[in-house]
């Protein structure tokens, strides 16, 4: 393994340690810079233009943002984003509940755990299709249940008051599985000595969960909340599959509305689309900043 560097590369030998990291980083940095970092700023710049994707972009200043302010569809999408965030949050306690339910060592439990996790592995496109059949007002399972109870079947996906909740439920399905697996891993790391000590002091059930277990699960909870919020703001696939934003745009979220405005058959308002994306980006930036700060602190400590 040992060999002496030839004299001609002595400069290289001296500086190897300072240059090497950048050489190792270069390919990843270039790709990431070109495809992820630069586009963020390009989008922000483009949001100041009026462009149909064909001619030359026309500078319009903040006009796209003023239009957004007056656009009821934008506010509807934003409101739905809020519904998504709050609805999606149910995945965290539900995942915890499932994890507690499955955190046993009976025969075959590993198989059960992986089967419960299963929905997360499947494409959202497939799940979206399944749930739209489930909601079908004439033949869907939900309609059958309603009719057998003597009720009028609910047309979930074409009723503007409940459509978003209907899609959120579909989205929760894989998300609960995700949170469950995070908590199962977290529960593995819970210290048995603390549990035993609390048990000796008479802590049981809820008290034990609140006072002893949950504080130890804080890292898992943190990650579960982060991925759930990010996931809810990214919701696109299910909406695209289940309703395409309908009926009359009442199930759109910002991510979907942006796509529709910019690239759908009736779209090609690139500047307006990037303005929506920019708003979405700044909303997300709050969380990104939050996460980065936490990671930064952790790094400083260690």
């Amino acid at each position, binding site marked *: 393994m040992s060999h002496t560097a030839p004299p001609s590369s002595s400069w290289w030998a001296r500086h190897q340690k300072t240059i090497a990291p950048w050489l190792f980083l270069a390919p990843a940095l270039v790709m990431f810079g070109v495809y992820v970092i630069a586009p963020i700023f390009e989008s922000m710049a483009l949001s100041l233009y009026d462009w149909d994707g*064909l001619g030359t972009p026309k500078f319009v200043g903040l006009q796209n943002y003023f239009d957004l302010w*007056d656009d009821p569809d934008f506010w509807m999408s934003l409101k739905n984003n809020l519904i998504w965030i709050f609805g999606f949050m149910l995945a965290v306690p539900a995942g915890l509940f499932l994890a507690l339910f499955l955190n046993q060592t009976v025969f075959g439990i590993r198989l059960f755990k992986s089967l419960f996790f299963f929905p997360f592995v499947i494409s959202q496109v497939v799940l979206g299709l399944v749930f739209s059949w489930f909601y079908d*007002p004439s033949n869907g399972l939900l309609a059958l249940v309603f009719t057998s109870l003597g009720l009028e079947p609910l047309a979930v*996906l*074409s009723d503007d008051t409940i459509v978003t909740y209907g899609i959120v439920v579909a989205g929760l399905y894989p998300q609960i599985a995700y949170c469950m697996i995070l908590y199962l891993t977290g529960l593995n790391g819970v210290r048995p000595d603390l549990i035993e000590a609390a048990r000796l002091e008479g802590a049981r059930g809820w008290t034990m969960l609140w006072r002893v277990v949950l504080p130890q699960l804080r890292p898992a909870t943190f990650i579960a909340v982060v991925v759930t919020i990010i996931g809810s703001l990214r919701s696109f696939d299910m909406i695209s599959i289940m309703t395409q934003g*309908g009926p*009359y*745009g009442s199930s759109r979220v910002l991510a979907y509305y942006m796509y529709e405005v910019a690239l759908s*058959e*009736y779209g090609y308002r690139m500047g307006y689309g990037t303005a929506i994306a920019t708003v979405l980006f700044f909303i997300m930036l709050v969380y990104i900043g939050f996460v980065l700060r936490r990671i930064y602190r952790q790094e400083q400590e260690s």
Partner: protein
Amino acid sequence: MKFKLKTLALGAALSLGTLVAHAGVITLNTDASDPAPKAAFEALVKSFEAANPGITVKVNTFDHEGYKTSIRNFLTADAPDVVNWYAGNRMAPFVDAGLFEDVSDVWKAEGLEKTLASAAPSMTQNGKQWGIPYTYYQWGVYYRKDIFDKLGIAEPKNWEQLVAASKKLKENKIAPFAIGTKATWTTGGWFDYMNLRVNGYQFHMDLTAGKVPYTDKRVAAVFDKWDDLVKPGYYMDNHASYQWQEALPAFVKGDAAMYLMGNFAVAPMREAGLKDEQIGFMQFPEITKGLPMAEDAPTDTVHIPAKAKNKADARKFLAYIASAKAQSEMNKTLGQLPVNNQSASPDDKFLKAGFSMLSSAKGLAQFYDRDASAEMAKAGMDGFQEYMLKPERRDAILKRLETVRKRAYK
């Protein structure tokens, strides 16, 4: 001197060589991905090549939906010589961006103002023609003749009769109208016909061109009439949950009795087992008395991209597809109507009815989503869908559409 001559000859040979290579081939980008259009184009290319020895046509077929976005890319980047597209306002962005070639010369040389007269207005922009229409099809009300006969309902000729027929059907537990509005464009057909029958062709064209506010009294009048069908619930239940094909079984089973649709709906009706005697076709009934009748007839077209390489041969192709012979053959395969009025008239029952209806039409609309600008069309059709589900929100919807109109047509 000798040397110079040689290079000259070489140069000539080279340019001739490239010329021949270009002259030989035209590329055609088409969205004819469904079986019938695909076959029609294959046959057309074959007969064109036979009639023009030395020219070969290279066909690139695109997915029908994907084509609507990819055309924007290849027109600007790597343009073929001929492309498929649609007439009316759908053509406008490409004409405005200078991406389509002016083909008025082909129209003049072939006398197309006469033979393609019915579609000429929708191909003309800034006084020039930008492409060739080769097929269209009629819209109208398909109805279950057997059900009408059983209940003793005669084919409605005017609005009052249509409403009365609907009432009777509803009393017999049959939904008067099948419709699926999950993809909202189907509502555009209803709005088009209501507006064409209440206010007439010119007003409809002005409205879709963005010249009239949606808060205009005349637009309100359209919805006053539409209320006659929406408020009593004459459209089938849960229509916003279904695509147009998913609404078809209701019509086939006899749970719904009428279907305002384009003629392309006939093929799946037949496939599902309906006999021709069971299906009736009628022109959308008169609403405002004495108003000349105009129809929806979406037209498919071919164009030459401004950046095409072999425009000379592309023009020959356009002239060919404009001819009565080519259009008769193509439309036989397509199951649609030729635009060229010298073409052989079709023998299919529904096409025959459509042919005579369209040839006596006062004017032809392209369909709401082709006549209105893209942004307006999307908002409009969303609005119509909302109205059909929540008619009480009409005023708010129209106000919103007016905001969109102001922005989209500024």
